[in-house]
């Protein structure tokens, strides 16, 4: 009996003790994975949010260009949103043959509205929707958003209208039925300012004339916090002085990122590229490195920045001595303190230059992918490909899509942390629809240079988006 009692006590006590020991280990809680929220547009989401621009008589007359990079007929449904209180127009459907582009004049879909935005729903994963702008000071293009967000950061702008012809506007599209309410805070060289409880009516477009809120600022960054609802936002910046003239309509950066890539920066002659980094955190300082990626011809130390909470740091690459030997390169914007930051590059070619003049701007890209779609426009255009991986070699295949189908142009290997570029002239045609396929996640940007203006922009992810921080 005693032995049996001992055995029972040992077994029972032992099992409970083992349970407690096991329970010391952490558990693996398999919850729904947080959504991958990247700023770079992803084509297979199917819904494109275009903050739009002005009507045909405005400073940035907006149009849409729908590009079908797929191999079948694609359908698209365009819902135009107005900035006034008129009734929302009915959606308009379009069909696109494979390898073709379709231009849609948004003001025509919402006549009489000073500002026009749109939501475009497409039912093909290889369709890209871009906004095109045409103003008196220049032209621009950028892909629409494929997500809405509750916070946007605009890292740079200027409002010295009187002497430099600089005007800055924020366009905010609320594609949902409920009104959105936003708070906007500005950090400018002339001091901080803010707007609170700005209502963006449901299924409407709202515009903030930053020039009227923060006057005569050479540098102004903005942070849009959506108190209720979700929006898509972009910045319109007009330069119209005797030195610089240009129009940039740049997607605002949602949320920021710990690691992002600027694929197309340059220190070319007569060109000034300025990188601005904004730390939206209200409390934490960001230690940021700008890592320089080249085609392998040079290895340079990063540019180190300290960005205080809520502030913006500007880096004029044209005066960085260490870059003097470089022409084109890429930058990785890395927040060492893991405080998400937003970054943008603005490239200015003054009127005095012999090159194509104008201003172009693009936000840093926070995602990599195995497949990118990059519609080009103009013989001077190029695409830049960056392999952000520290170890993996990416095999890059450049494909051109046209009405006749797919044409493989070239295949190259891109080493870890290397950058390369492909000129449109080498890809055939003035307006090729380029698809970049890679064996490892890469980042693709594009620089579009026409006869009279220049643009830099992200390409569009045509596959799964991977945050860069996850692929290094």
């Amino acid at each position, binding site marked *: *009996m005693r032995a*049996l009692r001992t055995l*029972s006590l040992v077994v029972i006590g032992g099992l409970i003790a083992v349970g407690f020991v096991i329970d010391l280990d952490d*558990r693996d809680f398999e919850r729904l994975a*947080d959504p991958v929220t990247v700023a770079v547009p992803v084509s297979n989401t*199917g819904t494109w949010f275009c903050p739009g621009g002005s009507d045909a008589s405005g400073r940035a007359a907006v149009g849409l260009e729908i590009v079908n990079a797929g191999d079948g007929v694609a359908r698209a449904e365009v819902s135009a949103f107005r900035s006034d209180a008129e009734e929302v127009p009915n959606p308009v459907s379009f069909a696109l043959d494979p390898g073709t582009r379709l231009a849609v004049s948004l003001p025509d879909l919402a006549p009489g509205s000073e500002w026009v935005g749109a939501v475009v729903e497409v039912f093909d994963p290889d369709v890209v929707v871009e906004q095109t702008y045409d103003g008196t000071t220049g032209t621009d293009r950028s892909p629409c958003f494929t997500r*809405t967000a509750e916070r946007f950061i605009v890292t740079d702008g200027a409002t010295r209208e009187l002497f430099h012809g600089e005007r800055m506007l924020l366009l905010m599209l609320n*594609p949902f*039925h*409920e009104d959105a309410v936003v708070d906007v805070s500005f950090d400018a060289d002339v001091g901080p300012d803010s707007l609170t409880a700005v209502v963006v009516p449901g299924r409407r477009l709202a515009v903030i004339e930053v020039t009227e809120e923060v006057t005569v600022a050479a540098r102004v960054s903005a942070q849009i916090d959506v108190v209720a609802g979700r929006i898509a936002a972009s910045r319109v910046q007009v330069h119209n002085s005797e030195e610089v003239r240009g129009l940039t309509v740049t997607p605002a950066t949602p949320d920021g990122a710990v690691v992002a890539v600027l694929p197309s920066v340059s220190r070319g002659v007569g060109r000034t590229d300025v990188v601005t980094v904004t730390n939206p955190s209200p409390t934490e300082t960001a230690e940021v490195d700008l890592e320089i990626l080249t085609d392998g011809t040079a290895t340079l130390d990063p540019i180190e920045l300290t960005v205080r909470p809520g502030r913006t740091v500007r880096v004029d690459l044209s005066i960085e001595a260490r870059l003097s030997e470089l022409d084109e390169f890429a930058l990785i914007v890395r927040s060492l303190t893991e405080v998400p930051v937003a970054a943008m590059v603005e490239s200015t070619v003054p009127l005095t230059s012999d090159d194509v003049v104008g201003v172009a701007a693009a936000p840093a890209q926070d995602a990599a992918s195995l497949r990118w779609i990059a519609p080009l426009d103009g013989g001077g255009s190029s695409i830049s490909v960056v392999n952000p991986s520290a170890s993996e070699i990416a095999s890059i295949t450049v494909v051109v899509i046209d009405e006749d189908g797919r044409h493989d142009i070239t295949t190259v290997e891109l080493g870890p942390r290397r950058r390369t570029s492909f000129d449109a002239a080498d890809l055939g045609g003035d307006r090729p629809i380029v698809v970049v396929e890679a064996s490892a996640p890469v980042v693709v940007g594009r620089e579009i240079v026409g006869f009279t203006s220049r643009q830099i922009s992200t390409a569009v992810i045509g596959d799964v988006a991977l945050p860069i921080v996850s692929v290094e």
Partner: protein
Amino acid sequence: MAATDENLSRADDVEPTSGIETSEESTPAARDATPSVTAVVVANDPGEWFSETLESIVTQHYPRLGLMVIDAAGDPGLAARVRAVAPAATIVDGSDTDGFAAAANAVLETDIDPAFLLLCHDDVALGPDAVRILVTESLRSNAGITGPKLVEWDEPEHLQHVGLVVDRFAVAGDVVDPAELDQEQYDAVTDVFAVPSACILIRTGLFGTLGGYDDGMNRRGDDVDLCWRAQLAGARILVAPDAVVRHREEMVERSGLDDVRKTRARHQLRTVLITGGPVSLLFTLPALLVLTLGEAGIALATGRLSHVTDVMGAWTWNLARVGDIRTRRRSLKEINKVRQADIRAVQQAGSVRINAFVRGQIGRGDNRLRRELVSAIRTGTTRFALIAWAMVLLFVFFGSRAFVTGGVPAVGDFAAFPETSGELISDWWNSWNDRDLGSVGVVPSGFGLLGVLAAVLGGAVGFVRTLWILGPILIGLIGAWRMLGVTGSRRAQIGSLIAYAIVPLPWASVASASSSGLVGYAVAPWLITVLLRAQASAPYRVAAGPVRSLPSNIVGLGAVLGLAVIFEPPVILILPVVAAGLIVGSLIALHPAGLGRLLIVILGGIGCLGVVALPQTLDLAISGPSWEMVAEGRSGVASTLSLSSLLRFSVGPDDWSTLVWALAIPVSVPLLVGRSWRFDLAVRLWFVALVSWGVVFVSARGWLSFGLPDPALMLAPAAAAVAGLAGLAVTSVEHDLRTSGFGWRQALLPAALVAAVLAGLPTLAAVETGRWGLGRGDFTTTLPFVDPGVEGSYRVVWLGDPALLPASGRELGGGLAWLATLDGLPTVSDRHIPADEGSGPLIEAVVEATLAGDTSRAGRLFGGLGVRYIVVMDRLAPAPFSAADHALPAPPALVEALDGQLDLRQLVGVNSAVRVYENTEWTSVRSAAVGGFDEGIEDLFDLAVKPLTGTAAVLSGTGESIEGSVPADTEVLVTQTPDADWSLEVDGQGATRRRALGWATAFVPVDGGNATLSYATPLWRRLALVGQLVVLGLLASAQLRRLVARKPA
């Protein structure tokens, strides 16, 4: 009356007060001063005791006592027997009479005229001074009838009768309890309503005035009738307890005729009819009829047809004697001196019959069982048990007082009941289930039965709902009480009862609105008991073998599980837990005997369960088994429930105090000191607990690839085992500790007692809110759902943690679950997952597509399913009735996905406990659409490109028959699972049916008009329900029979 023997005198020849020997102490002077008494003994073929009866009379210390023996049986040898003891006694032939009353009345036909008559049965033995005391008290108190204290013949220390209380229905009850010990507690002279006819002293004049006993009553009830009429005549009735009379009271045994129930029922009704005033009869007779019907109903349910015949036959018997009754009423009226109200005042309030039933006396033999019952009550442990039960019940009801007074909020599993009992019954009777996208499947029959109960209670749906929630707790406590009943230790039962009451499990289940946890709590102790009986190891066996036969055990297991499953299907999962625990425990205890029986009973019990839950069994057979039905939307993902929490049964929103750990001491006692079967049983119960804890622990760690139901349910066997171990601790102390030598074991008793008190403190503290921590309010008034009658019927999709959903959800992955309801909040009919999922996966597909970011038009997709609202649950109850720190927030991915939909509009400001999205592109569940509306739509996801437009809501409402009007030149789109048993008639003309949208149904009527959309439940399904009711009825009947037949413990 005829002479039967030449030695017998005719009554009218009898000389008064002659023929009796006086006692030696009698003196002539005393004889002159005392009133004369004639003892009238009605002899009906008495046994050998009769001499003692006669001797007790002839030896009375009373000077003027005569003796008359009335031979009611015409016994030729009686005279000799009488003469042998009382040579001077008068013997009267009463053989032509029927029964005691008529025979006793023979004295009225004689010419004797004593002051008093002492009317006696032939089986009494008077104490030496009985007559004197009776006469003295009768004179002193001016009583018309005086009765003695009747005691048992063989056990004179046991009281038999000290007068009778009588209610308005002429039902008599004893003042004393059965077999109550005579401790002189009733020895004061007392007014009573009646005295038993075994021995009464009555004034001769009064007896004559009353016309004697009612000779229409041959046996039983005559005493009540006589006394009632005496009271109406203004006579006082007393008991003089100093006069003691022993009484055999063996009429049934002597006559061999058990007509107690029949004669009592007849004569009680006769007495009421004769003595009742016209006004009082207006109330009394209907009430008596109701009582009779109730008694007959219970008898019918228990299969006692003779009982039914007896109680109902009383009415026909009396109807056949209306003339006689009328005559006696007239006679009584002439002597009536007392108002009926004054009679009522001295009658027993209420119903003696109901009291007797409650005490378990109806339908049983008389004295033996009553004596056992009373003996049991008289013991100290039984009193302690009663006190323990009273305290536990007080604790439960006080802790639940808010529910009792204000109802239970409809949150979590505690879904609301339909507004009427009829709807609840209808939901069960008709086999169409509206939840999700609709499917064919039964609502668990338990809810149908609750609907019937509510109907029987006059539509008390709210009360029945409260009963549904609190009832399992009481059933569980009874189960815990009975678990160790077989040990014969009342203290062990008390230990189990109290331990089961103080474990936090039921209260945590209430706080988290876990119905399955409560039903598990109710079932677990019963299940353990049944399986222990099946295994038939000590103490669950008698010397001859198992306490119960194998078939009996099988039926018992099937019944226990079946009754649980008809309320909560997931309860089935605790069977393998308990079985595994018992098997492993038996092996560890090296006592595997009976495992074969156990396995046979389990297999047989499952088969029996299949019969008890017949409709659900058929559903499963048709649709195939589905783990979702028991997992309630839970997946195998890890939870935050720690081992420490589950060992303390802390599974509710609040963490229970670590004081609960103190329970570990009492439950360890049987392991440490138990011997013999107490140790064996302790080991088995410990392993039941360990398996239960282990299963929940493994699930909480996320090691299972499938989900288990609510942890509260899976922990119920552990709680029951803990209760059993606590009871075993008591019995171990009783049996084993006192045989141990002095040492550390002696410290266990005080330590266990102190630990039990400490462990109970957190539970005692939980009574403070009166609702065990459950929120006061629910979502009924919080959620802004539009009346479906205004804009058409719609669906609501509920998303969130399975513990928060207002009904059992289907698993969505990542710890999420979903369900869909029609026209707002779910009712209890939507509570369970039907075996047939119908087209429900379409909703799941839309949610998954939304989560995957594959669409920003979830509204259009949901719209095609009739979904108007999507509710994401973050908390069990709305703020402020639920604390923010009790929230189980929806994953950001879900919120992000829904927020990003272009056609979902979040309704802001609803409540912080939920996110409500309204679909801006919803289509009513039933809508009129122009023909061809679905051209080109072959798949639900086509709606993202081509949404439904131009529809108008029609035929709003729920149920199996929906009426409304339908416009001309339209089709009626019904977005629910297609089923051929649905049909549409417009102005009496059937509409053709076709498949629409690839998955829904469109009816094409010939023209517009008044329409009826109806569902025809297949006949076989209703037959299955009826079959189930029959099985349940048989089980209930068998159980009632056993209860009624069982001796008191």
